[in-house]
């Protein structure tokens, strides 16, 4: 068989089973790293799964079922190598707010609704992926991701402060009210909880510095548990995790009745959307560190499949988790097998040592999550962005502030909209530069404001000449006449114009007419083939004049300048252009 055929077959196989794309990278060294990351991830997700299920109005084991099935499928069928999916705060909140008015949270009916909603959200995500809407991810710029990550890191840290201080502050999804609640309860700090959290955090930091390859977070949690045991912390008000049920995710069946679908589809749509935005933002955020290219469409498909499969195994809708993905990456995970191992370890924990989890103090978990949140903030890129561009810095700051003070998905929308606005503003203002011949380098033209020549001007337009940019260019061209009324002959160097639309082409024709009315003319050189085709097809080239189009600036000057008969030229004492100097020399004495 031809090698090309084999390659096509392999490529097709990798398209259908995306885990084959990275399978050849798997070796003992990657498996070792992934095992460590998976083990740490499984421990971390225990309290989170429980907490998020409770936020979603479900029995706590449903959070763990979601943490087993959803990340496994999403990792194998998604694009990101480090994204860990599963239960998340945002989706848990949306599910609760969408379904709690329909059925009593925690009831059989409620669970059935959640499972059907999860299935529908998965179907929406899967369809988005097939429809190749993953391109949307390209509109989430790096500054948006860095700002969003920093904001989310602070939100994550904020959510853990009450556990670290051991204060009974009510949970809040608002950044302000969370700190207000903490402020009100600050006098009730539990020093035992604080000691356990601080000890765990110190150990985690110590392991990170001294033994970065070890599963420091896991060891730190074990040490935290020992500190709690030594201080007899439980009897001093330190909360421990609850004992978990000992079984794997049971099989479930979504409700496929038309009535249920009709009722739940509108509710599933925002869940699908938020899930995708979260997953893609996190995947891109991690990819900024890991230098991986994210295939948005594949990630959509992976997220969709994970929720579809999850709905048959008693899971509720999941998405990418910032905390767990960050831990996964920072503990050295190299392939999505870490998510698979995490699911396996979590299953084993559930089956074998579920009762032991009740010895794990929640402040220890809080301490570890604080370190993870700190690591998520990309100080290096924040510094680079702030130094490099004010506009990018504004995007970063807006996204960061919106993440803290508004909903997570709104923060992304705000960042994306601002990026788009600034991009449009940039493209609507193409740079128009005055050019003069370089006296040291014949044939080269350099930007300069030299206004010696009273009759002829060269400008270069850098950017597309489309409807949005026409006004800006016209303003510039007319300003030339205002400042230098005799410069009615204009050569446009079009080498920087990639695209001309009808409005742009008409602008050029109008400018040529206007200049001819002023006893001057318009010439163009360096037109790209695409732009030339547009002018030709629309008949604009005839109106400007085919003989007014030149290949290079030099070519244009050698044709135009000898023919210029401007009274100003006769009085010119120091010609700017070589061609004028030659003309001067050729004059009879």
């Amino acid at each position, binding site marked *: 068989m031809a090698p090309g055929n084999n390659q096509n077959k392999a490529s097709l196989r990798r398209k259908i089973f995306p885990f084959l794309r990275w399978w*050849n990278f798997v070796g003992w060294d990657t498996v070792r790293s992934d095992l460590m990351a998976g083990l740490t991830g499984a421990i971390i997700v225990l309290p989170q799964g429980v907490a998020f299920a409770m936020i979603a109005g479900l029995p706590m084991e449903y959070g763990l079922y979601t943490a087993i099935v959803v990340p496994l499928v999403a990792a194998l069928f998604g694009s990101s190598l480090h994204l860990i999916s599963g239960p998340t705060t945002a989706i848990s909140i949306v599910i609760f707010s969408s379904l709690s008015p329909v059925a009593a949270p925690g009831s059989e009916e409620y669970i059935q609704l959640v499972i059907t909603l999860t299935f529908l959200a998965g179907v929406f995500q899967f369809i988005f992926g097939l429809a190749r809407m993953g391109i949307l991810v390209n509109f989430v710029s790096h500054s948006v991701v860095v700002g969003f990550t920093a904001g989310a890191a602070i939100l994550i840290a904020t959510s853990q402060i009450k556990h670290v201080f051991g204060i009974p502050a009510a949970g809040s999804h608002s950044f302000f009210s969370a700190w207000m609640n903490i402020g009100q309860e600050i006098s009730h700090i539990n020093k035992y909880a604080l000691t356990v959290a601080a000890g765990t955090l110190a150990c985690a930091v110590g392991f990170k510095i001294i033994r970065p390859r070890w599963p420091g977070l896991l060891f730190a949690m074990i040490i935290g548990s020992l500190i709690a045991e030594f201080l007899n912390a439980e009897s001093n008000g330190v909360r421990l995790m609850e004992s978990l049920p000992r079984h794997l995710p049971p099989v479930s069946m979504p409700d496929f009745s038309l009535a249920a679908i009709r009722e739940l589809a509108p509710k599933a749509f925002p869940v699908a959307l938020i899930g995708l935005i979260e997953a893609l933002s996190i995947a891109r955020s991690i990819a900024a560190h890991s230098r991986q290219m994210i295939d948005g469409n594949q990630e959509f498909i992976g997220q969709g499949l994970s929720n579809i499969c999850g709905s048959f195994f008693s899971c509720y809708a999941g998405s990418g988790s910032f905390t767990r993905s960050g831990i996964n990456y920072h503990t050295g995970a190299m392939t999505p097998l870490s998510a698979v191992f995490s699911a396996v370890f979590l299953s084993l924990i559930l089956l074998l040592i579920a009762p032991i989890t009740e010895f794990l103090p929640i402040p220890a978990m809080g301490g570890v999550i604080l370190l993870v949140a700190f690591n998520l903030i990309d100080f290096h890129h924040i510094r680079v962005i702030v130094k490099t561009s004010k506009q990018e810095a504004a995007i970063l700051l807006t996204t960061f502030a919106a993440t803290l003070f508004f909903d997570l998905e709104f923060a992304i929308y705000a960042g994306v909209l601002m990026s788009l606005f600034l991009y449009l503003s940039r493209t609507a203002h193409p740079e128009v530069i005055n050019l003069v011949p370089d006296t040291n380098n014949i044939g080269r033209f350099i930007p300069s404001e030299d206004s010696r020549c009273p009759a002829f001007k060269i400008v270069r337009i850098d950017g597309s000449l489309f409807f949005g940019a026409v006004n800006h260019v016209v303003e510039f061209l007319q300003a030339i006449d205002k400042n230098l009324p005799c410069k009615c002959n204009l050569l446009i160097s079009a080498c920087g114009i990639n695209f001309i639309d009808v409005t742009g082409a008409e602008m050029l024709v109008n400018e040529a007419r206007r200049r001819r009315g002023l006893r001057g003319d318009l010439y163009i050189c360096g037109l790209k083939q695409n732009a030339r085709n547009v002018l030709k097809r629309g008949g604009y080239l005839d109106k400007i004049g085919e003989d007014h189009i030149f290949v290079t600036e030099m070519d244009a000057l050698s044709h135009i300048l000898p023919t210029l008969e401007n009274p100003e030229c006769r009085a010119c004492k120091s010609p700017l252009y070589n061609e004028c100097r030659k003309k001067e020399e050729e004059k009879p004495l």
Partner: protein
Amino acid sequence: MSIVTISRGSYSRGKEIAERVAESMGYECISREIILEASEQFNIPEIKLIRAIHDAPSVLDRFTYGKERYIAFFRAALFRRLQKDNLVYHGLAGHAFVQKIPNILKVRIIANLDDRIKEEMKRENISADQARHILVKDDAERRKWSMALYGLDTWDQRFYDMTLHIETMGIDDAVSNILHLLKRPCFQTTPQVREQIDNLSLSAQVAAALVREFPKVTVDSGKGIVFVSVRGSLVDEKRITEKVGFLTREVKGVKKVNVNIIPHLIEY
């Protein structure tokens, strides 16, 4: 001033040809010596090295990287010998390691299977069926080894400068042909080739120093500047860079080490 590698199947009389060529040219003739040197230098059992350069990698090897390690040691020892020049190598896997060096004469000796069976029966005192079974298995194993590790088929003539069928020309003619070719300027060791071998040797020594810690290491070098690519998480970039620097500090000829971390490989 030349180097010859002779690739052959078992009992193809390649050893005899190699010895005659070496004798005529006054060169050193080596085969198993490389394995012994590698075994001694890197403290590896000889049998493990032989298996590593003979047996095709198993599924388990993919995860344990045993083969990669032993091959790196073997390669380091081989290149150290190649640096001395004036050499005829007729041991295992020689051609696979010197493909990129044009001036090394790469010869393939082939013989009829029946003749090889007869030779093996005579030497090992076994039946024809047994001899046939061993030879066929041996050839297949070497072919798989080369394909799995280097994508080279040992039977593919394109990888050799000359293929000699020992039945049609006999040993004397084979030796004469090789000697004739060796006199051609294109098979002389030029200063450029010497530099290329030095660079490849330095790469091989560095790879051998790193392979225990980084089994999938690839090394390139030029004028003492070494470019090391190892797979690992970018989170560990600093630690890996320091580790590579530490492990290569005693390799002679290394002036500077540049480390490139390969965090992932995605095939589409």
